[in-house]
Every structure is written in structure tokens, then in C-alpha cells.
């Protein structure tokens, strides 16, 4: 499992972004991370995939544990490089614009392509079918719609066979139909034995598809548990947030 324990993140001027946050992501489960904008969700995601190191706390990936701040002067301490075991798909996708979607998906596997070309192409064909990408897979990112790019970005993460995928607001820029297609694709991640952390404002999706929910507010975990947290909210702050989300949807 991917676990964050007592994570604290501060800005350079000392402002607290995450305050003693703990969270666990299990394989074959979708954990929904909900909360208002600016509550520290993306910061937590970046700490979990070791893109930004927290000021203090521990991040554990299965059997390996990293205590922060890292003591890099100690020769035994190594910088964590857990990718692509842990990978992420961001709101702004970051597909490489000079490559087609197919090339985007295959580029991270380039080193393996020489030996396993047949196998990898078969895997890609399978993904293309699963994600319904046949007719646009050879287009460049800017020749495709937001939903198509989103599916390609998820496919790029999935072909790497990660154990954990962290998804940051991946449906926020999509219309209802495209969002539904992407969310359908998420079920495939779970089926592939992958643990998913999903930052989302889609409360209904979190209610129906997530196995657990974490509510983050002002850098703190306000509540964590089953989906009852949002189906039968008891905390006034969560009730307030959900009523706003309902009004906006």
C-alpha cells in the first residue's frame, strides 16, 4: 500500500499547506480525495508521488519507507525514484505535443520496445480497444478533444503497469459525456490491481465508485472513511461543502 503519515508541507515563507496529514491508498481500491480548492489536495498528491518532498512525515511504498526531510548526506539514504510504480495523471495532462497519442503512450517504454515489441504492441492494441481510441490514436494531442487526450494520458500511465495511479482532477475540463467515458476507464484501473487516488469534485462519482473517501480542508484531514462520509455527512463543514457542490452541479 501507498501510505502518507504525518505529512507536513510549508511554503518558503512558512505558510502551512499540509498539516500532519495521513492517508492510505490500497491496491484494487479507489480512494477519493475531496475538498475545496486550495485545501492542499494537489500538494498531497505531489508528495505521494515524490515530485515535491514534504517538510516532515513519512511516505511508505509497500515495503520501502522514506522519512522526510531526507538526510541525503547519509550515504545510505537514496533519493526516492518510485516511478512508474507510482505514477500520476494531472489536470493538464502534459501529453508531449510533438508526438502522436500512440507515440506518447509508447515513448516511456522505448527501452523495452526493442526486446518486447510484439508484446507491448499487443498490450497497446488492447488498451486502444478498452479505451475506445482506435480512430484517434495516431493524431497529435492538439488534434483531439479533451476527453480523448484524457483517455490517452490514462492509457500512458496504465501501460507502465503501475501499482498506484494518482489522478488530479482529470475530468474537470470535460463535458458530461467525455467525463463519463473517462470515469468508465477508471474502473479498468481497479480491475488491473491498481490502487487509485482520485482528486475530484464529482461527488456523485465518488459516492458510487470510490471505496474510501478523504476530506481535506485547509491542509488538514477533516474526515476519512467509507463513502458514508459523503452520502450521510455529519460534519458541518462537509455538509456545507456538499451542498455547494450540489448547487454547482
Amino acid at each position, binding site marked *: 500500500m501507498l501510505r502518507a503519515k504525518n505529512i507536513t508541507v510549508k511554503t518558503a515563507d512558512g505558510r502551512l499547506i499540509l498539516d500532519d496529514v495521513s492517508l492510505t491508498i490500497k491496491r484494487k481500491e479507489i480512494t477519493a480525495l475531496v475538498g475545496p480548492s486550495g485545501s492542499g489536495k494537489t500538494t498531497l498528491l505531489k508528495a505521494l508521488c515524490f515530485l515535491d518532498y514534504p517538510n516532515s512525515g513519512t511516505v511508505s511504498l509497500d515495503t520501502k519507507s522514506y522519512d522526510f526531510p531526507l538526510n541525503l548526506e547519509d550515504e545510505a539514504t537514496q533519493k526516492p525514484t518510485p516511478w512508474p510504480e507510482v505514477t500520476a495523471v494531472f489536470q493538464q495532462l502534459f501529453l508531449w505535443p*510533438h508526438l502522436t497519442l500512440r507515440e506518447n503512450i509508447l515513448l516511456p517504454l522505448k527501452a523495452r520496445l526493442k526486446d518486447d515489441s510484439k508484446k507491448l504492441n499487443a498490450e497497446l492494441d488492447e488498451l486502444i480497444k478498452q479505451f475506445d481510441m482506435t480512430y484517434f490514436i495516431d493524431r497529435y494531442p492538439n488534434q483531439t478533444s479533451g476527453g480523448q487526450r484524457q483517455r490517452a494520458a490514462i492509457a500512458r500511465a496504465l501501460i507502465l503497469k503501475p501499482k498506484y495511479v494518482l489522478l488530479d482532477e482529470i475530468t474537470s475540463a470535460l463535458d458530461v459525456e467525455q467525463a463519463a467515458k473517462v470515469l468508465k476507464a477508471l474502473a479498468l484501473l481497479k480491475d488491473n490491481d491498481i490502487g487509485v487516488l482520485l482528486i475530484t469534485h464529482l461527488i456523485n462519482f465518488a459516492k458510487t465508485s470510490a471505496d474510501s473517501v478523504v476530506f481535506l480542508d485547509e491542509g488538514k484531514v477533516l474526515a476519512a472513511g467509507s463513502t458514508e462520509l459523503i452520502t450521510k455527512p455529519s460534519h458541518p463543514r462537509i455538509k456545507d461543502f456538499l451542498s455547494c457542490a450540489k448547487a454547482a452541479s
Partner: protein
Amino acid sequence: MNTLDILIKYHPAFLEGLKVTMQLSAIVWVTGLLLGTLLGIMGNKYPHEVGLPTRVLSFILGGIPILVFLFWLHYPVQFMLNVVIDPFYTAAFTFAIVNIFAVADIVRSALNDFPKQYITAAKVCGMGERQTFLSVQFPLIFREILPALLLLQVTMLHVTLFASLISVEEVFRIAQRINASIYKPVEIYTALGVLFLAISLPVNGFALWFKHKFTRDISES
């Protein structure tokens, strides 16, 4: 005597001048592109130690007309140092300095402005630094800067005309000499224009071809 007649009659002189112009340009292009790229990369990697001084020097150089810089290096500096340097080398050095800083500016800006998200995406996909540089950074940056670099090199070719003013026997000086003997300024400078077009057009054509073949609108809606 028309332009064609002049080109035919004086072609040995023109070729000799063109040879000097091309030698000068080759030195300016090679040193500018190699050292400028290196300086740009270093300036991006060490923004305080290399980047800042380079930017300051580039800013100062940008404010000095090339002709003044050339004259300054040719007359007062050599007088102060009590040395006499072949004008060809003075011109090559002057234009190379200008080209190095201009190339460094283009390269450094492209590296600074490169969207870091593409590197983050490569990182979370498990790609190493080398693969990220070769497959993501380099192709994107190269496509972005190439048209500007080619345009700059064409400009540097045109700038070499200033070398005639410190007695370098390049093609413009040859044209001036021919004009002094037969006084046909329209035809002679048209011939000179034709020669420069013959060199510049392939470079501009290559830039256009490259842009058409390798660069696309990559902005996302």
C-alpha cells in the same frame, strides 16, 4: 554594361570577395552556434554564476551598434594594447562575439521557458534524464529555436559587409572597388544583391522547409 555583364566580367574578383565573405561567415556561424549554445545551456544551468553576467553583457552589447564595436576593437583597442591585428581576424572576432551572445540569448530563453510539466510527465512515467532530454526537451526546443537561429545567421552574413569598412577584402569591398573603376552603381550593387540572394535564399528556404516539415501548431484548445 548590365548586371549580368558585370557579373561575368568581374566574376573572378567577385568570387574572391565571396570566398572571404564565406570564410568570415563560417567562422562567425560555427563559433556563434557552438559557443553560444554552450553559453546558453550554462546560463540556464547556472543562472547566477553564468546566466546573469551573460545577460548583462548581452544587454550592453545590444546597445552598441555593431559598426561602433567593430571600429572600437579595430582602432582604439589595438592602439591601447599596442598591437596590430589582421582586420579579417578583428572582424571575425567582433561578429563572433555578437553571434555568441545572440545565440546564447535564444538558447537560454528557450530552456528557461520550456514547460516543466513535460519533464514532470516524463519523470512520473519512469523516464530517465537522458531519455527525457533526447526525446522530449531537445526536439521541442530545437523546433522552437531553429527558425530564429537561421534568421540570425542570415543576419550575421549580412553584417559581414561591415568588415569592408576596416579594409577586409570581402565581397562588398570588391563591389566598391569595381564601382570606383567603372562607376555603374545600380548594376554593381544589383549584382551584389543577386550574390547575397543566392546565399541567403537557400538558408531561408531551408528554414521554411524545416518549419513546414517539423513544426506544427501544437497549441491545445
